[in-house]
């Protein structure tokens, strides 16, 4: 089966085409266009306009790049949620229009579950991981337990990416701030104590963000503050992930989301995994960030297991919970 997937939950609009090859995902093309705001954060309406401008071309380019014809596409998937309303609606509309035009079925998928399944589908050896999903808006620890994908821990306020972006904005860095913070942190030498806030299995970042901003306004070096922020937030994320692994007794950990590109975070989670004799997986960067291929792959898994979705049922859901997904393709 060849499946085309459209991702549009936040600042990226992506189209990916995959082919299922003996239970593994072969990516035929995966194109992404990201909206970069001039200043401030992501404005939903502006991001949606950006997506609407580029989606049609992205679809034709990805079909071309995949060296297939529209007639070869068996299924059109799209990110049904969670995410920003206007953006989701743009991607969904494009998907429905395409599906109706080529007279093929449509399938809306959960964006967070897609981050997990693309790990299972593209990384060899990754079969039953605990996913640490870290992006701008989302920070969740997800694992398959008792027949569903469940959230074992999550942010109580903002996503880690959003926390880093907000801090970056406060110190006048350009979006996306994460990579620049990572650079600055490399030259940090002094650890400045920051609130280490874990409540049960959930994490809060707001207090830490405020404290970090205070250090900057009191004249502490940016390198030291960035270093301290990374060390503290990533330690919190690693701890919650480890506890989920202990609780579910799973021996694999998978990273996903844009923040998974951060080398320090990877190093920490990898070390934690090694010390528990567990295996660490991270997909290639092009499928860590928001992308269409992961949407296509999950759509395939769902359709292949017998799930179907009518156009009426394909309504978007900004608050689509990970545990609302009917995981019919796993035992």
């Amino acid at each position, binding site marked *: 089966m060849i499946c085309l997937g459209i991702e549009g939950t936040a600042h990226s609009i992506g189209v990916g085409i995959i082919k299922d090859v003996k239970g593994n995902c072969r990516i035929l093309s995966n194109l992404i266009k990201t909206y970069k705001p001039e200043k401030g954060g992501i404005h939903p309406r502006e991001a949606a306009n950006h997506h609407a401008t580029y989606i049609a071309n992205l679809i034709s380019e990805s079909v071309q790049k995949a060296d297939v014809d529209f007639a070869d596409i068996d299924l059109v998937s799209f990110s049904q949620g*969670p995410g920003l309303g206007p953006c989701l609606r743009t991607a969904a509309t494009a998907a429905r229009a395409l599906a109706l035009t080529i007279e093929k079925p449509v399938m809306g998928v959960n964006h967070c579950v897609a981050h997990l399944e693309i790990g299972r589908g593209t990384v060899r050896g990754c079969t039953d991981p605990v996913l640490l999903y870290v992006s701008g808006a*989302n920070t969740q620890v997800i694992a398959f*337990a*008792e027949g*569903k994908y*469940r*959230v*074992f821990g*999550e*942010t*109580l306020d903002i996503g880690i990416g959003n926390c880093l972006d907000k801090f970056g904005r406060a110190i006048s860095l350009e979006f996306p701030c994460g990579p620049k913070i990572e650079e600055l942190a490399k030259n940090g030498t002094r*650890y400045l*104590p920051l609130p*280490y806030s*874990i*409540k*049960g*299995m959930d994490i809060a970042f707001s207090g830490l963000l405020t404290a970090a901003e205070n250090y900057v306004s009191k004249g502490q070096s940016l390198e030291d503050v960035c270093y301290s922020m990374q*060390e*503290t937030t990533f*330690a919190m994320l*690693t*701890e919650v992930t480890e506890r989920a692994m202990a*609780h579910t007794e799973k021996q694999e950990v998978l990273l996903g989301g844009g923040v998974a590109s951060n080398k320090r975070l990877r*190093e*920490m*989670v990898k*070390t*934690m995994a090694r*010390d528990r004799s567990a295996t660490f997986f991270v997909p290639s960067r092009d499928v860590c960030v928001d992308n269409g291929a992961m949407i296509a792959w999950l759509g395939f898994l769902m359709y292949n297991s017998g799930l179907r979705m009518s156009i009426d049922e394909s309504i978007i859901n*900004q*608050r*689509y*919970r990970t*545990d609302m997904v009917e995981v019919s393709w796993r035992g």
Partner: protein
Amino acid sequence: MGKTVVEKRRVKKAYRIKEIDTLLIASRTKEEAKLIAESRSYGVSVPLIYDVDLAQGIITMEYIPGKRVKDILNSLEETERKQLCQKIGESIARLHNHEIIHGDITTSNMIFLNDRIHFIDFGLGCKNGEMEAKGVDLHVLMEAFESTHSKYSHCFEYVFEGYKKQFSGDASAVMKKIEDIVRRGRYR
């Protein structure tokens, strides 16, 4: 001494920098030992503490030879499960009556022995008189039920029945807090 003991050692974690590791180990060890001792004084079943070494992060305490609630909850008869859950609620209420927040109430952290619920692992606990803290404490258990014992949807209800019986404050205010927390959760 001839007794079976548990040495809870807070293990240094190689993934985090020394400064964070040292801070966390010392503060969590101290807090945990204090909370366990205090809980005991209020009649909640907890391990007896024999020794504390803050520098090394070690608490030496009594071994509780029962079964984890996590391992027995799903295989009980419904009436037994109901009773067990009510007992859990009563014990949590006793803690909350004295502003003790366990901080990590999951079914992995409760041992059932001699018809009593024994709490272990106060590592994330604290003293906190606010309604919010009590709500969060119970919410963690609610989530633990949903992720590990989801088949038995009344567990939390039964826990709260027991909680209401023993709690000296306004239990309905606590329940309202829990509902707030659920509503606050992302994407709910």
